[in-house]
């Protein structure tokens, strides 16, 4: 690795330390800004290659990246195996449904409230559940999932009927709407609709949430999380209250999952009980494993991959020459997609346990040592 001169401990606290890192961040930021402009254009690539679908995939990935980072905070850093992910997505949907759809509370007020609700409910659920370890915790949170599913069904049928909870399109805050950039609709409102506008809502929320979580992880509490994951007796003998700290990790993780549930509900406009199958937690496990375990960047990369890969695969399956003539692939599209991820996980675990982040690091190491690399 290239060395750098550190003259102040403050420099060690920066997330992006070296010049190449800063360059990469600038490039990524530039791409993130250009992305929606490019993929909302009317350009139609040949062979029916998807174009606008990438923007939808990016929005879903942004929402999922918050959930994946939260999942990683709990599983990757604190090593607490909780499978109650979908339960907190339901909690988010219920919070949004109750406040937004029934009481017409603004979307922008619901977001912070959902963080709070998620943290409090997370702590309440964690209080008994975190007395268990490992597989026992998994089973306990398994129960939490089905408990929430029951609550959700009751909630939906008593307030919204049997079909689904519907969400209104949120409005752009007044001060932003008055800047004159937006043209209001017939009723004088500026609604957040369509992938282009949603992208600009989701991107900053995702960036801020993930920045928050990565700060927590690398400073005091996060060190305690990582310590507990490795050696809990020793952690308690450095003065860490193991139960309280686990609870804190659980609450933070639940808070952000709940918020991503709110975002998902508003973005997709309708949620029913079948929107929260138990497998959801597996999808997040896929993101975290493929992206790179115990790495926040990994969680983000994993979420992007999780939504971009099927977009590409769908096209490949249905439009690519030769492949599109294979009947079997068309008949079992979803199953094959999932099987693809299954195979991918095996490949990752066997050959690249570090995931996408690990691949990136080894590439970096390779170029750094060139021409002496092997």
């Amino acid at each position, binding site marked *: 690795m290239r060395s750098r001169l550190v003259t102040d401990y403050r420099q060690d606290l920066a997330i992006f330390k070296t010049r190449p890192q800063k360059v990469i961040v600038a490039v990524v930021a530039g791409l993130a800004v250009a992305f929606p402009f490019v993929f909302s254009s009317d350009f139609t690539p040949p062979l029916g290659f998807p174009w606008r679908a990438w923007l939808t995939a990016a929005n879903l990935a942004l929402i999922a990246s918050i959930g994946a980072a939260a999942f990683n905070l709990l599983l990757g850093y604190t090593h607490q195996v909780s499978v109650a992910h979908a339960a907190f997505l339901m909690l988010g949907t219920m919070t949004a449904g109750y406040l937004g759809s029934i009481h017409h509370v603004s979307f922008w007020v619901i977001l912070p409230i959902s963080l709070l609700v998620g943290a409090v409910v997370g702590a309440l659920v964690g209080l008994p559940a975190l007395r268990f370890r490992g597989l026992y915790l998994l089973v306990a949170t398994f129960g939490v999932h089905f408990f929430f599913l029951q609550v959700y069904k009751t909630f939906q049928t008593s307030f919204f009927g049997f079909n689904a909870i519907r969400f209104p399109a949120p409005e752009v805050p007044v001060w932003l709407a008055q800047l004159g950039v937006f043209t209001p609709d017939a009723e004088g409102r500026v609604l957040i609709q369509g992938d282009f506008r949603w992208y600009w809502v989701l991107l900053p929320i995702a960036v801020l949430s993930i920045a928050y979580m990565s700060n927590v992880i690398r*400073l*005091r*509490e996060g060190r305690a999380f990582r310590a507990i994951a490795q050696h809990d007796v020793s952690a308690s*003998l450095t003065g860490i209250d193991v139960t309280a700290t686990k609870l804190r990790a659980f609450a933070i993780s639940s808070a952000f999952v709940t918020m991503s549930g709110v975002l998902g509900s508003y973005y997709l406009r309708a949620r029913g009980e079948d929107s929260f199958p138990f497998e959801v937690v597996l999808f997040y496990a896929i993101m975290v494993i493929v992206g790179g375990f115990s790495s926040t960047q990994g969680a983000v990369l994993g979420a992007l991959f999780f939504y971009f890969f099927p977009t590409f695969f769908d096209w490949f399956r249905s439009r690519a020459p030769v492949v599109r003539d294979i009947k079997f692939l068309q008949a079992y599209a979803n199953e094959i997609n999932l099987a693809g991820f299954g195979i991918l996980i095996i490949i990752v675990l066997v050959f690249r346990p570090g995931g996408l982040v690990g691949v990136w690091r080894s590439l970096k190491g390779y170029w750094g040592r060139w021409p002496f690399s092997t």
Partner: protein
Amino acid sequence: MTTPILTASDVTVQFGGLRACDGVGFEVTRGELFAIIGPNGAGKTSVLNAITGIYRPLQGASIVYCDRQGRKHELIGMKPHRIVRLGIARTFQNLGLFPHLSVLDNLMLGRYIHQKRGVLSTGLFLPAAVREELEQRESVERVIELLEMAEFRWEQVGSLPYGIQKRIELGRVLTMEPDLLLLDEPMAGMSVEEKRDILRFIFEIQRRLGVTVILIEHDMAVVMSVAERILALNFGRPLTIGTPEDVARHPEVVEAYLGANGG
């Protein structure tokens, strides 16, 4: 005579039918280097585990700790992390480090009890949280300098040699700034040279920083030359307690170490 920093009486730890230690009692004076010796399985580590709240002794035991302000605390029944916050730190016989964290993170964990900023201010990266982090980093760097570990700062602890890891563990308890330090065989498995280094550090900690040290050690030569008072255990029972000369002459100690015919 000042009040003792630690007074243990009638400490009995039992696992099923086995008494790991049986009616152990002793007093440690503030500022002293107190050693606990005994053959393997004599119950030395069990005594430390009872003090730090990992094992719970049977009814009737009492371990009273007197903190810097002169307040007395009964340690039995207290959670380990509470005991640590009173100013008691310990090392482990087979390392209590976090192998996947860097040396710096391990040492920063020693500052955990001295940091106050919670998840809200650290997560939002508020100036107060950053300031606290930098202050703690500076005090950690002083320990890194004292123990001559600057070159390993960013290494993963698990990838370093055993002797260095022992030194890092000593460093971590130092960053905790304890009043009472419990060292469980800090020199086990070390070369003579490494032992000498560790001894030098222990002396520095005790003399210069005024920390009271309870040392468990197998190497008799080391114990006899450094300890001010020694408690000898055998099969969980206290044999004797006294100065190194007294203990070395005690017939039961000689028997425990050298066998029945050794004396």
